């Protein structure tokens, strides 16, 4: 293993001080006295001496044990918890990693203290009902604690690796094979990826682009020939994608292998940005870049949070992989990555034992002492899964595969890994076991409501005094660490939605790792009418019903049956209400929003120039693009005739590209173009100007709101209300079997749309609302109206009426 790596890593990390998403602006919190003291502490010579370090470790260990175990009376515990929390609140104002570390210590300490108290004082095993439910809940809480601590360790100091520049002498650049495996995806999807790969900036004779077609399709063979890329296929489909890649390894010779899923479109800078590290570190086996998505995933689409709230994957690609990188534990994610051929062959090619072959391959590399790296700059982009069921199916595969690795090749056991690598891998795998604990939390208060089980045997106020600091610190600290990549309380929603589906496969994979398939069938294509996916939401409906029943019983217990322990009833009722909020939000996720167009449309906002048949030109804005099409918003009063042939200019930096197209849609200021008769070069240019625009991907997160713990909760509550509204609406609908009727909010939206199309007087706030919520044509109309209004106002200011 390269000996240079750890020090390099730490230097890089020191240089890029990590600022949390929100830092108080005052200089005191950036440069004040406390900062000076802590800097002095960091620079203290004692850290370099073994004896000092051991002594300090022992003292800290003792202090830690003491602070976890010392017992306080109930009021004193409340005061103690409050004081520690306020100190954490104050420290949060300071920028810098050291303060994050202090907050982590506080959080782990408070959570440990809570669990210590739970184990020692609240577990009653003398009756069967209390004992059973109590132990089950405690196990779930221990799991949560473990994942919390491992999560802190994993993301304690994200490396933020910078790209390494390539040598100026091109003759020393290595040869690279680009693999684009495909099985049954249509050619129009693979086409853009191949065209974008052709445009990658790399010496042509050193680049070999291969389509790995497991579908044995002539159409693909002909396409490969026409654009001059290699076409590889095989007679069987053994081991699916992993087998496909392994077969291709025997038929190619490049020193490096870059892998793109057939719907991940690479930026032209991909290789130049990633290959530098391979030349610098001869022991580097794999370098991963993030998966970036151009279209909203089902969560974002159904909740209307695209580009506003970080999506499910952002935590992983924005933070966790960067955190893994510090510990040399970045793992391969199946696409958008480069691997060194010798290293890949050394571990026997891509792993075939599990269904998450990617992570397993990286684990094997680490066991053999290779390094891996992560660069957190999107260098490829694709379209997100279309429906919730497809999304769930994908997550099931991940969860099942990770559980398989955990069972077959457990990272805590076996040779070759450092302790932190073991912990990072373990966390990545343990994370996917959240299904059962999450459901336990969603149902736990019901054991009291239904069976009067005292699962936490303590008075309600004591539970609050211990549990609140534990929960509050965990949320506060995670908001600081993860806020930019995941908003507070959103993990609850993401995990709760998937919990039921991944709990069975992970459990089965633990018991019988080589068996079982759990795939929810994907209902691809167009979602014409808004509908509630009853099939996928069935488990949540069940839990929702149980919690509603529990809440009703809670009232009975509060006033009649258990009025002698009103505090306990109320605590359980509050917990039930919280669960209802989360479950309500999962209902909002399960309500599939309408998709207006068949082909995926990717939103954009870039300058374009339209040249009409008569030679006149119009400067306009491109608002979305899809396979072979472009949507434009014209300036006011400019008319474009339908079906006319035009030329459209798109810009890439200062360079401009002209494409022939025809107008296939024109209404008001919105027009739609279809490209026709593009030659190969033009097709490549078009992909570069649209889907493969890396500059646009970087701006994607700029529109996101900043995380504040309480606003995260508020957003979840709003989503929940929407979800429950949907639920009652679709429930009534299916009971009455009436024809389709709009929900109130759709009705309102449709009314607004009608006004917009007729250009009626409508408030700007309402327009903004439509623009935010609608990704389709209504959103575009709203945007263009907003733009023209903005201009009108500016002009009015310039020329005041006398």
């Amino acid at each position, binding site marked *: 293993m390269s000996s240079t790596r750890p020090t390099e890593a730490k230097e890089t990390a020191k240089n890029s001080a990590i600022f949390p998403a929100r830092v108080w602006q005052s200089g005191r919190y950036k440069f004040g006295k406390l900062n000076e003291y802590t800097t002095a502490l960091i620079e203290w010579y004692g850290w370099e001496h073994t004896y000092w370090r051991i002594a300090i470790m022992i003292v800290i260990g003792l202090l830690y044990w003491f602070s976890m175990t010392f017992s306080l009376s109930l009021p004193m515990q409340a005061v103690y918890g409050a004081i520690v929390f306020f100190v954490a609140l104050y420290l949060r104002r300071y920028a810098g990693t050291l303060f994050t570390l202090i907050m982590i210590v506080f959080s782990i300490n408070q959570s440990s203290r809570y669990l210590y108290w739970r184990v020692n004082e609240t577990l009653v095993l003398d009756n069967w009902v209390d004992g059973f439910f109590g132990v089950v809940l405690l196990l779930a809480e221990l799991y949560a604690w473990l994942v919390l601590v491992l999560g802190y360790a994993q993301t304690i100091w994200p490396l933020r690796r910078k790209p390494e520049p390539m040598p100026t002498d091109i003759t020393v650049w290595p040869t690279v094979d680009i693999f684009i495996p495909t099985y049954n995806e249509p050619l129009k999807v693979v086409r853009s990826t191949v065209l974008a790969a052709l445009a990658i900036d790399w010496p042509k004779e050193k680049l070999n682009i291969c389509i790995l077609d497991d579908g044995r399709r002539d159409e693909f063979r002909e396409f490969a020939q026409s654009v001059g890329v290699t076409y590889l296929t095989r007679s069987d489909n053994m081991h699916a994608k992993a087998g496909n890649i392994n077969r291709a390894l025997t038929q190619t010779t490049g020193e490096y292998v870059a892998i793109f899923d057939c719907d991940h479109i690479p930026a032209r800078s991909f290789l130049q940005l990633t290959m530098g590290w391979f030349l610098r570190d001869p022991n580097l086996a794999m370098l991963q870049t993030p998966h970036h998505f151009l279209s909203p995933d089902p969560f974002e689409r159904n909740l209307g949070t695209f580009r506003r709230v970080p999506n499910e994957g952002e935590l992983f690609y924005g933070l966790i992989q960067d955190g893994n990188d510090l510990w040399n534990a970045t793992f391969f994610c199946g696409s958008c990555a480069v691997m060194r051929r010798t290293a890949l062959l050394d571990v026997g090619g891509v792993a075939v034992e599990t269904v998450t072959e990617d992570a397993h391959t990286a684990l094997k590399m680490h066991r053999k002492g290779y390094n891996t790296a992560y660069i957190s700059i999107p260098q490829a982009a694709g379209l997100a899964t279309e429906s919730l069921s497809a999304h769930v199916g994908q997550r099931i595969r991940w969860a099942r595969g990770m559980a398989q690795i955990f069972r077959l090749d457990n990272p805590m056991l076996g040779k070759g890994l450092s302790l932190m690598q073991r912990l990072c891998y373990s966390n990545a795998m343990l994370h996917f076991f959240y299904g059962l604990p999450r459901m336990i939390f969603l149902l736990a208060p019901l054991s009291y409501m239904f069976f009067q089980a005292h699962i936490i045997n303590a008075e309600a106020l004591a539970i609050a005094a211990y549990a609140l600091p534990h929960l509050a610190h965990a949320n506060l600290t995670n908001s600081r660490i993860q806020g930019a990549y995941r908003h507070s309380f959103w993990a609850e929603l993401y995990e709760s939605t998937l919990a039921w589906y991944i709990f069975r496969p992970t459990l089965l994979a633990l018991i019988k790792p080589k068996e079982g398939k759990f795939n929810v069938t994907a209902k691809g294509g167009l979602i014409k009418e808004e509908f509630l996916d009853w099939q996928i939401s069935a488990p949540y409906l069940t839990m929702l019903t149980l919690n509603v029943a529990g809440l009703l019983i809670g009232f009975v217990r509060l006033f009649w049956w258990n009025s002698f322990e009103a505090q306990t009833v109320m605590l359980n009722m509050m917990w039930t209400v919280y669960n209802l909020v989360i479950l309500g939000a999962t209902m909002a996720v399960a309500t599939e929003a309408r998709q207006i167009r068949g082909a995926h449309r990717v939103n954009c906002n870039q300058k374009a*120039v339209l*040249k009409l048949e*008569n*030679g*006149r*030109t*119009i*400067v*306009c804005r491109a608002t979305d693009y899809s396979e072979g099409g472009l949507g434009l918003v*014209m*300036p006011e009063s*400019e008319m474009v005739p339908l079906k006319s042939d035009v*030329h459209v*200019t798109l810009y890439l930096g*200062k360079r*401009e*590209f*002209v494409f022939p197209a025809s107008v296939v849609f024109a209404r008001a200021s919105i027009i739609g173009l279809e490209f026709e008769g593009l030659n190969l070069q033009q097709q490549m240019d078009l992909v570069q100007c649209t889907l493969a625009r890396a500059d646009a991907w970087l701006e994607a997160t700029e529109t996101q709101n900043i995380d504040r713990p309480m606003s995260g909760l508020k957003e979840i509550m709003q989503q929940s209300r929407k979800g429950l509204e949907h639920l009652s609406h679709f429930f009534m609908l299916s009971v009455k079997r009436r024809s389709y009727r709009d929900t109130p909010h759709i009705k309102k939206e449709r009314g607004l749309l009608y006004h917009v199309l007729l250009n009626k007087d409508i408030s700007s706030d309402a327009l903004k609302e439509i623009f935010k919520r609608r990704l389709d044509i209504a959103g575009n109309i709203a945007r263009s109206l907003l733009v023209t209004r903005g201009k009108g106002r500016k002009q009015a200011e310039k020329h005041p009426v006398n």
Partner: protein
Amino acid sequence: MTVIAVLSPKGGVGKTTVAVNLGCALAKAGRPVRLLDMDPQNAVRLHLGADLSDVSGHVHQTLKQESWHYAEYDSDYGVSFIPYGKVSEIERISLESQLVTTPDWLHDNLISLDHEPGLCVIIDTPPGPSIYVQQVLSVANLVLVVMIPDAGSYATLSAIEGLLEYYCASRNDFYGSYYVLNQYDAAVPLNRDIQSVMQNTLNERLAPACIHRDTSLSEALAFQQPVLQYAPHSQAADDLAQLTSWLQVLLNRIPK
């Protein structure tokens, strides 16, 4: 007062169009602008909706030995302009011979006119070297050379540079010469190539935006309007807007 000379190595590159439209765009951005036509073609007035029957210009004033003040017209587009005037061959020859003996003719006449603070005088010149260009270059603070992206235009680059070197480089009230590409069409490979060659030779002396080949420009002339007025959403108007903000930056750099 800042004097901007608009030059071109050869005819038909759209120099007058660029001069007038840039002037109108500058005026729209709030800068007082006076357009001065030094080209015997007398075309500036055509762009500005002037009364075609009125043929007087500064040549007549010079020959009558009267002030240019009476040759200045207002337009509907925020700029005032002084046309060359429709003159007979005899009048032109007599003026040009007069210019040879009075090298400060243009300078003195410009000074004699009253000018608002921040005034920008844009002078349209005949293509190629001439007695007019000689006088204009002796008073210019900034020079814009209009080119089209073809080989012929590019070949004249060194001749223009020589001219600028001779008349302008040594004056300390001269603040640089810049090149503007007109009639650019990104769909034509030769246009793109010439553009990148010029970018490499001239660097920041090439204006950051080209003016694209656009029918709106010639249509605007037919309607005797600046293109910003006639087709505000056209590509040419957009290019001119970009050029104007670039020109504003250049003008603001000039010490008062």
